[in-house]
């Protein structure tokens, strides 16, 4: 686990969860997700949605070709479970109505997990949050997934429960400044570009990608870095827009100083918000940069912290 992830996983205690990053041997960020320690010798690794096969194959490749004498087996159990996120200020009330196990803050704190029953369903409950709200992710056997969903919808009716899709999730996680593999990353991005240094262990002797991240190009201070972008007129920066700087390059094109990686209208804040990779970005807080639009005109955006909402994380830890 310490080789697969950039951060320290071996110190994770049974019953706890930890967010982790996975890189390729070239140092590029390839996956992220929450790891739960099930027992002394078992870790359960959540991958990005749709990434389970790829990450399972990545683990098997290293185990079969490089670490064949390590005593580690993996199994891809993705399809064994239906996992439902129950999210929002009333999430706990809905689960308490189903009943069967203690889901209070005291019994099941943020970034902890527990096995039990909810409404008669055998469930593994994780207190993890990608939305930034009070959030439980609940895994039940897949063959009872629909029945469990129906039970949640019935119990939640009095709280105006509703399904939310990935677009809503995308907006909520962007308000929180949480990265998305495939948006903030494109196979050329290292965790350091995204300000994720806190999730890269300095104590570990090695992990996949460590050596690559020490190469001159990877430590170049001119690598574009992740920042938040707040449009000056409240509009939404077009998806994929590039920021232009002073002067032109050798081909007579405007010099580029950054690009948008995620851009949304935030209904919570009532304005356009975005994250982007910007030259010297973290050192230019408060400065305004220009994003020309296809078809003429420009959007101007102020460089800000990427966490737009609930910076202290108080909403998810209640």
């Amino acid at each position, binding site marked *: 686990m310490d080789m697969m992830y950039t951060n320290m996983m071996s110190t994770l205690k049974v019953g706890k969860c930890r967010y982790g990053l996975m890189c390729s041997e070239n140092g590029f960020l390839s996956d992220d997700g929450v790891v739960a320690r099930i027992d002394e010798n078992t870790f359960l690794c959540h991958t990005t949605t749709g990434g389970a096969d790829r990450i399972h194959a990545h683990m098997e490749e290293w185990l079969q070709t490089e670490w064949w004498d390590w005593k580690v*087996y993996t199994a891809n*159990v*993705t399809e064994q479970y239906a996992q439902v996120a129950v999210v929002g200020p009333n999430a706990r009330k809905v689960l308490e109505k189903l009943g069967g196990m203690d889901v209070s803050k005291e019994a099941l704190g943020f970034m902890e997990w527990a096995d039990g029953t909810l409404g008669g369903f055998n469930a593994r409950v994780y207190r993890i949050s990608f939305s930034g709200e009070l959030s439980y992710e609940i895994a039940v056997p897949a063959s009872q997934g629909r029945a469990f969903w129906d039970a949640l919808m019935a119990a939640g009716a009095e709280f105006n429960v509703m399904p939310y899709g990935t677009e809503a999730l995308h907006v909520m996680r962007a308000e929180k400044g949480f990265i998305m593999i495939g948006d903030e990353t494109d196979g050329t991005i290292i965790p350091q570009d995204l300000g994720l240094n806190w999730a890269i262990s300095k104590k570990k002797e090695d992990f996949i990608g460590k050596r690559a991240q020490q190469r001159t190009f990877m430590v170049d201070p001119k690598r574009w870095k992740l920042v938040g972008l707040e449009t000056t007129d409240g509009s939404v920066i077009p998806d994929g827009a590039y920021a232009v700087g002073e002067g032109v390059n050798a081909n007579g094109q405007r010099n580029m100083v950054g690009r948008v990686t995620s851009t949304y209208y935030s209904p919570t804040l009532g304005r356009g918000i975005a994250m982007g990779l910007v030259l010297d970005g973290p050192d230019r807080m408060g400065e305004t940069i220009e994003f020309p639009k296809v078809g003429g005109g420009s959007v101007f955006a102020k460089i800000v912290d990427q966490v737009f909402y609930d910076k202290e994380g108080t909403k998810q830890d209640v």
Partner: protein
Amino acid sequence: MSDAVTALKGAKSAGYVSVAEAKLTGMVTLRGDFASKSFATAVKSVFGVQIPDTRQLSVGAKCTVLWMSPDELMVVCDYAAADDLVAQMTAQLGEEHALVVNVSDARAVFDVSGAQLREVIAKEAPVDMSAFGVGEVRRTRFAQIAAAFWLETDDHARVICFRSVAEYMFNLLKNASKPGYEVGQW
């Protein structure tokens, strides 16, 4: 506890070969060192069979053990029996390095029956069905999805795939066994 349901609630099709989604089936993944004496002993004592040879299966009184890879077996049993088999196997293995996990909900199982079932499988999987016999198991693909199958008898095959692609598999088998589309190879 609500009633557990299969992915397609027992979907059936009656073509020139019949296809039916099987009822919930117990499955246990077991990984370990086949060369280890204590591992082999545990398999024998809990499952009642020898470790199957490469690409073979072993049929016991309460379960069938499939060879999945040089260090992985899959046990097929009654749905209700899987948890107990996992507990027994875990206890039996003791300190032996192994992985035992109940994966009974992870897959869909299809019964494919009829004299021409070899032809229907050959339409979807890159497997030489003329050389495929009872007692063998094959991990392969059916069109675009990962799958495995074995023959219970010469005219009854079991095909398994992941649960989330159960409908794709069912439609594939249904279409391949549509009356009027016999190739006549078998």
